[in-house]
């Protein structure tokens, strides 16, 4: 069957739209009466209306086809669905849970990264970190107070500085792992014995691994790296998952929660 190119109507689109709406009885008031007046005066407009009327009549006369088969679903092949409310409750819990977990991971990673990226600035926040330590150790042994004070000033590489760096690095492991004794294993063999107070101080220190590692890094160039210092410096890094990974994981969780929320809100 040959397909001729359609001839486009010479009537303005606005008139076509009026005629189409008039056919569907959608015109009211002055718009309708204006068009009826124009139809009475303009044979071309009348002819156009009749052709459109014929076209719509042909469409309305098209027979209704009978589907070739039934589209009913077979209960045996359709998996049972959860009920409406159970499904929504599960979706909400999932979204909220993953969103909160993602947010916490992002915050945690941000804190770690901010601390780590501060680099040479590490000495600045150090006193703030040292202060609670000092106050915690207010009644403790002078040795512990001294080690806290050491943090706030540039350090000459001395065994005691090395020790303080090592000690400061220990609590990070202690906070990650409850086994504080493992942290004290990083202390140099020739250091002063770690008192219980020091152990307590280590446990009360806030988790600022990068600050402490930077402290250790500062001490490093001025002395030959001893195994103790190496351990003290390395201690924060393996203490947990790298912050970038935490950040990415958090962002992914937040993204999943957000996408899931948008998906369920779109509805029908």
């Amino acid at each position, binding site marked *: *069957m*040959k*397909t*001729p*190119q*359609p*001839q*486009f*109507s010479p*009537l303005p*689109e606005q008139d*076509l*739209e009026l*005629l*189409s*709406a008039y056919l*569907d009885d*959608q015109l009211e008031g002055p718009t309708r009466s204006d068009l009826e007046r124009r139809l009475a005066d303009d044979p*071309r407009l009348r*002819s156009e209306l009749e*052709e*459109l009327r*014929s*076209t*719509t009549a*042909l*469409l*309305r006369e*098209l*027979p*209704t*086809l*009978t*589907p*070739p*088969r*039934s*589209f*009913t*679903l*077979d*209960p045996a092949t*359709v998996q*049972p*669905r*959860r*009920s*409406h409310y159970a*499904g*929504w409750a599960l979706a909400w819990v999932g979204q909220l849970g993953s969103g909160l977990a993602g947010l916490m991971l992002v915050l945690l990673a941000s804190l770690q990264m901010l601390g780590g990226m501060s680099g040479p600035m590490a000495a600045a926040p150090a006193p703030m970190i040292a202060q609670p330590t000092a106050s915690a150790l207010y009644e403790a042994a002078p040795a512990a107070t001294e080690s806290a004070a050491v943090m706030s000033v540039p350090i000459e590489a001395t065994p005691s500085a090395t020790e303080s760096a090592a000690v400061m690095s220990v609590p990070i492991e202690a906070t990650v792992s409850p086994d504080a004794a493992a942290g004290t294993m990083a202390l140099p063999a020739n250091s002063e014995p770690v008192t219980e107070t020091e152990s307590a101080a280590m446990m009360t220190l806030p988790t600022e691994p990068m600050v402490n590692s930077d402290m250790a890094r500062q001490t490093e160039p001025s002395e030959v790296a001893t195994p103790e210092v190496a351990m003290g410096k390395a201690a924060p890094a393996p203490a947990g998952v790298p912050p970038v990974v935490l950040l990415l994981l958090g962002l992914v969780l937040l993204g999943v929660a957000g996408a899931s929320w948008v998906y*369920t809100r*779109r*509805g*029908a």
Partner: protein
Amino acid sequence: MLNEEERIIESAQRGDVEAFNQLVRLYESRVYNLCYRMLGDAEAAADVAQDTFISAYRNLNRFRGGQFRSWLLRIATNACYDVLRARKRRPATSLDALGTSDDEGRGFDLPDPHEHPDEVALRHELAAAIQHGLAQLPEDQRVVIILSDIQGMAYDEIAAITATSLGTVKSRLSRGRARLRDILRAGELLPAKFRHEDR
């Protein structure tokens, strides 16, 4: 009727497949006819109609009231668009399904026994010609023409199904009708009885 339908929908939302099948029986003809007029191919229309009901069942929890029929036809319309898009990507297969086959001869309700064979033939020829004309319309105009002029729906329901405004529906309908009129008037597609003389 609507309250009864709401009750059936609630049962179906609780996982009652038989309740959902009542809805299928109620709307399968309308869904199939929409798909057939959009695609011009009985087999593809049946597949899309089946997919529509499966998709509707799986997403029934996302139906939040309103007209179930509109919601269902919206799923069907989107499924038809997907098929048409796939055909455009693979044009070799789309030529078989432009409504030029003899699908119009199959699936009709039984013809009136008093109808003359010539009249039956003329009716089939005309239906095939109109289907061919529909296939030449842009998809957005085609769906509005089908819903309005073949299925007899109101503008606001068509707007809901096509996710457009009333103004857009009116505009697409007017342009679609004018274009279809031009196609049919252009000549050989229409039997002489329905052909208008050129002005």
